């Protein structure tokens, strides 16, 4: 949404915050597949924002 609104810096910051949360959750819960998948999606987002 921020990216679409012409605020790429804010979008990047939001993606990075999201990735940090996903990393924390995935590392704390290595057997929860949903969180591992979520982390992978976070990496995808960080590559494509």
């Amino acid at each position, binding site marked *: 949404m921020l990216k679409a609104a012409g605020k790429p810096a804010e979008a990047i910051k939001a993606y990075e915050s999201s990735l940090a949360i996903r990393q924390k959750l995935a590392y704390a819960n290595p057997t929860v597949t949903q969180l591992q998948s979520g982390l992978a999606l976070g*990496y995808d987002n960080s590559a494509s924002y």
Partner: protein
Amino acid sequence: MAWRSATTTRHLTEQDGQPDEALKAYGLASAIRQKLADDYPTATEFQSDLATSHIHIGTLRRDTGQAAESLKAYESALAIRQKLAREHPESPDRLSDLGENQGNLAVIDLDARRFEEARLRLLDLKQASCDLQF
């Protein structure tokens, strides 16, 4: 169902000139998905997600002029998606993914002027499209 095209995927390389960073992130995602796919071989979602990772890497490689690496990544995705389409013929998503993959590979073939190979892939894509309508 609309065909999804990897050509619409945008990377850091297009926007910020950071293809190495983008590739690193896609690689991390791919490693997670490879482990999930290995640990849960009957979970189609994880297999499909792994194929998607291969597609992301293939498209980034293609966009940065690495045709051979792109082809390899797309073919890795194709192998997974062909298996999923065979195992789940009732699923339009599986067929759509397979069509997308053939489209990606056709672009690589066209870039390399392998016209006959591209034609055959596009015929496969057309067949998949027809199958989706019935």
